[in-house]
């Protein structure tokens, strides 16, 4: 394990990704201390100001400071990313282990259900549920979690299928350990690395989806600031205020990129043979 962490830290991309993620988390946690203005403080005499020393990233159509709003937006993006991934992890790992371990009819039923969810254009399903429920941050997290698990379930199932025939699992079965104990003590620790890779990539995917939804007005609702939502006003003022569109987009790009690079680096360290960038 220690050796692996050393290997990970030798990878420049991974270090860069970790650094950006660390900065983001710090910014999100200490948002009130860092941001120069309150995120929803309107100042109508300073509408649509260009980036300057007083407003690093300019102001929006209501005179709100973009830099401060982006710092608070980091809170939203990271929360959405982490919580939806927790939901994905719970559903995907559980269904994957059950499916792979029991096999037979249970496996068939779960896998057909997975096929159904995979065949949906996920974004349409999310759009549908969010629009018909009330769009708010909790629904966004839950819906992203509920629709993005099939990839993980398949991955875990494949891992469990190959583990199942190994001696130590057979011995555990022979010793009449309960299935729950076999899952948690013998199977889970052995499939943790692909799960880590997948969750790192999935956090990036969830942040992307959240910002797309917020951009379409279906995600985080105002006055809560979110990166996608700032971009919406960027679209409205596309002819006069480029800074509204540029900075939040770069923030999203960097965040998603860091999680992806980290995931790729973890994959390189733990098992260099596999390729987990499945469609998300």
């Amino acid at each position, binding site marked *: 394990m220690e050796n692996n962490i050393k290997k990970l830290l030798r990878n420049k991309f991974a270090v860069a990704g970790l650094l950006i993620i660390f900065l983001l988390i710090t910014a999100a946690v200490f948002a009130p201390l860092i941001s120069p203005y309150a995120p929803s403080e309107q100042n109508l005499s300073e509408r649509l100001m260009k980036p300057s020393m007083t407003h690093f990233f300019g102001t929006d159509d209501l005179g709100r400071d973009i830099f401060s709003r982006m710092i608070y937006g980091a809170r939203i993006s990271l929360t959405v990313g982490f919580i939806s991934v927790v939901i994905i992890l719970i559903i995907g790992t559980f269904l994957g282990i059950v499916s792979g371990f029991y096999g037979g009819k249970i496996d068939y039923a779960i896998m057909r259900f997975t096929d159904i969810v995979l*065949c949906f254009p996920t974004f349409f399903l999310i759009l549908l549920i969010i629009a018909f429920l009330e769009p708010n941050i909790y629904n966004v997290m839950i819906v992203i979690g509920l629709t993005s698990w099939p990839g993980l379930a398949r991955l875990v199932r494949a891992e469990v299928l190959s583990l199942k025939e190994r001696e130590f699992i057979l011995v555990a079965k022979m010793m009449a350990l309960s299935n729950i104990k076999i899952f948690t003590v013998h199977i889970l620790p052995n499939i943790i690395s692909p799960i880590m890779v997948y969750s790192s990539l999935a956090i990036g995917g969830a942040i992307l989806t959240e*910002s797309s939804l917020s951009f379409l007005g279906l995600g985080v609702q105002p006055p809560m600031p979110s990166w996608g939502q700032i971009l919406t006003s960027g679209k409205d003022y596309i002819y006069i205020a480029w800074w509204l569109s540029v900075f939040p987009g770069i923030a999203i790009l960097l965040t998603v990129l860091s999680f992806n690079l980290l995931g790729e680096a973890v994959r390189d360290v733990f098992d260099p043979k596999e390729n987990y960038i499945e469609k998300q």
Partner: protein
Amino acid sequence: MKNGCRHLFAGGVFYLFKKYKSIQIHRKLYFLYNNKMYYLIKRIILSIPILFGITIITFFVMHLTPGKPTDLMTDMNVKVTAEAKERLQQLYGLDKPIHIQYFDWIKRFVCFDFGDSFKDSRPARNKIFERLPATILLNSLSLFFICLIAIPLGIYSAVKKDSFIDKGITIILFISFSVPSFWLALIFMILFGVHLGYLPISGLYSFDFGNMSVLMKFFDLSKHLVLPVAVSVITSLAILSRYTRSGMLDVLKQDYIKTAYAKGLNEKQVIIRHALKNALLPLITIIGLSIPGLIGGSFIFETIFSYPGIGRLGYEAVMARDYPVVMGIATLTAVLTLLGNIVADILYTYADPRIKYK
């Protein structure tokens, strides 16, 4: 055509026969159909439950969430009485129990009737099918350019593994994989549409499209397509390219590549004649699997570019709670996805004779 239908039918009957094994099958017949046609039929039959699953999920998600489409029409109007609301719901059949509504929908769907749009009472089928060509045009163009760019990139970085160029390509691909498509669309619109003014930023036609000559029409259309296609291609480049790279790396390790080098062929010959074919085979499946992603992406950037395809129609229908149109689009995208997967599988079995169809 007639012949093809007969074969399809016979194949289907044969599949059911074989499944239930109640009837002894003549060996000759078995030989005749234990082939690609049989495999095709089986795939089609197996994908029907998936299609139904998708319609059930969409239908129930739509109907079980609070609020009815008629609320949008009546809530703002104080004159509407409760009685009038009920009558309106009866008109659309929304007062019946949900499973009966679903069976009604299935009954109409089997006859290829999606019902009338709640918004303007036009048949949902017509609304969808007049938008479909634009989406298919956009997505097939994107798919074409994705293959054209991603595959050579993947091959190049596999051949020059761990070189400076390989690392450069990798990092560029990671950036393109992480970039939000709607933001890229915005930036392109600002850059090429607003500041440089080269390209139109929305729609598919100019206002005076009707008066143009054929050549001008083509030119106008392609000008409008550049930005949406570019965004679509850039954001979906990474997956195919990474798969090409890893597939190519696997092939380059094989013994027959060593043999080819050993008999004195140069690198170019080895790669083009021996490695390429084998590395490209698995990509067929990946391309088939990428179809739902492409269609899902359409919902975002068709809305941004005001592109008249089913993505934007779907977004508008979801917003207006136009149940028949939403159901129609969900079903259609599911059918396209399943078809894409089946076609990819079939092509794969044709391309690679080592694959057995079970």
